[in-house]
């Protein structure tokens, strides 16, 4: 393992994050506050408790997941797409490093940034609603696994994308709808039966449900199924990255 190289990539990527720290920090704080104003105060006051918790508190896990997933994907994809776009990828390809080390460096940095955002949102939410976490360890585990998995997915996206439009396309057309329809702001059990069934095909449902279980101890789907889903997705992403590694797809001519 070329650890100095992993550290170099990680530090270089984190430097990008710290250069725009104000933006990185302020933007999730503002958007979270807005969600609480709109969903928590304006609409939430008219909604009864959901699964035994106030609506404002109920949306906290979904809100964190929403930001963490989108941030993971955008950080993961941009981190590797940018060197491809400006041409500095030649350095990665000619350095004595293997693909796994590149992935650890980039995905590690992307996941760290997303994790930071997740914590900021949790802290911000704390100002608006009372939050008690039923299973703190499980909460941290879900958060970490989600950031890693979606940063990996972002990395794949960044390798695949050949222009900025493609880079935006998947998050915009696929990921965001899946997150919004994955029960970020509602419980799947509130839906008509047919939509409940359809929702079961949305992988994000399992993540949000599991994450919500970690907070409140109740969930739409059994926790074991959620655990299985996140691990399955993680393994799928790793498998795909392994394939890219072997073939040099879209990286090495």
């Amino acid at each position, binding site marked *: 393992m070329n650890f*100095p*190289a992993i550290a*170099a990539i990680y530090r*270089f990527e984190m430097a990008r994050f710290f250069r725009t720290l104000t933006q990185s920090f302020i933007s999730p704080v503002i958007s979270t506050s807005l969600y609480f104003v709109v969903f928590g105060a304006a609409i939430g006051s008219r909604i009864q408790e959901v699964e035994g918790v106030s609506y404002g508190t109920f949306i906290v896990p979904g809100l964190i997941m929403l930001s963490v997933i989108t941030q993971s994907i955008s950080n993961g994809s941009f981190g590797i797409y940018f060197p491809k776009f400006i041409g500095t990828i*030649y350095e990665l390809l000619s350095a*004595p*490093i293997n693909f796994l080390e590149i992935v650890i460096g980039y995905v590690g940095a992307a996941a760290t940034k997303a994790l930071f955002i997740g914590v900021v949102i949790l802290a911000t939410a704390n100002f608006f609603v009372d939050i008690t976490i039923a299973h703190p360890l499980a909460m941290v585990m879900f958060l970490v696994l989600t950031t890693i998995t979606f940063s990996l997915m972002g990395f794949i996206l960044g390798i695949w994308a050949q222009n900025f439009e493609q880079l935006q396309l998947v998050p915009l057309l696929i990921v965001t709808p899946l997150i919004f329809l994955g029960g970020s702001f509602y419980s799947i059990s509130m839906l008509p039966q047919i939509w409940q069934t359809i929702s079961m095909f949305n992988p994000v449902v399992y993540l949000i449900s599991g994450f919500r279980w970690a907070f409140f101890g109740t969930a739409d789907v059994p926790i074991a199924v959620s655990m299985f889903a996140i691990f399955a997705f993680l393994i799928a992403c790793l498998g795909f990255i392994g394939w890219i590694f072997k073939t040099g797809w879209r990286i090495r001519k």
Partner: protein
Amino acid sequence: MVNILKVEDVRKAFPSGFEALKGVSLDIDEGEIIALLGPNGAGKTTLISTICGITSATSGKISIGGFDTATEYRKARNLVGLVPQEITLEPFETVMNTVRFSRGLFGKKRNDAYIEKILKQLSLWDKKDSRTMELSGGMRRRVLIAKALSHEPRVLFLDEPTAGVDVELRKEMWEVVAELKRDGVTIILTTHYIEEAEEIADRVAVISKGEILLIEQKDDLMARMGQKRLKVELQSAIETIPSDLAEYALALDSKGETLVYTYDTKADRTGITKLLADIAAAGLALKDIQTVESTLEDIFVDLVHEDAA
């Protein structure tokens, strides 16, 4: 001399069927400067990219410092620094950080004293905290060189280091290359400026259409292939060359004022003394005489031309 780079029958075919390298072999000794000369599209960049691991060879074997680039790529790549043709730098990062990043990528421990040394050598030290986007083109290219040298490589590839660079900067770049050579770095540079090869290379390899046409000591090549021309300017113009001078295969310029005699510098007898005597005997009065040596450019054009024929 110790061999530092060995390329054996390397082929590179693209999926389209285009063969960019058609069995290239090269042996490069430590400490020399090799100029890879060739027209656009000859395969220069493909060859360098293949050696450095940016593209993979279809077949053939490459070893750097005795390490196979496929099976022992970490050890092989540790010895190599690459300065690409295009100036590509992370625009928002400082010079110092981007050079540190390169050193880290090559698995080397942080060593700011060493980076300071290279940045000073490349006249970049006072720009170390500037963002790369704030630098001029010449400076950015030097940052690329600093990045390539950051991990103390033994072989440096410079892919068209002076393409699109003005004369002054080009001279500056040559000085940098000469200094690197003094430090014992082996340098392989591609160029299509013959002047560049002539100025700084020890050996010249000519590549055309994916094949190495020749690789030779620059001076030997110039001596072997080089011809000299003697230009004899006449007092008054003539219409035809006198028949007495037919044996010299002279050429007459369009104004009829200058006779041009081409001769081989290596020959025992150049025939100049006799020619001058015969010109006088033919009744022609001389105004001036000068000799012109053929440049690497002429040799190169001849070679590539022959290859195309």
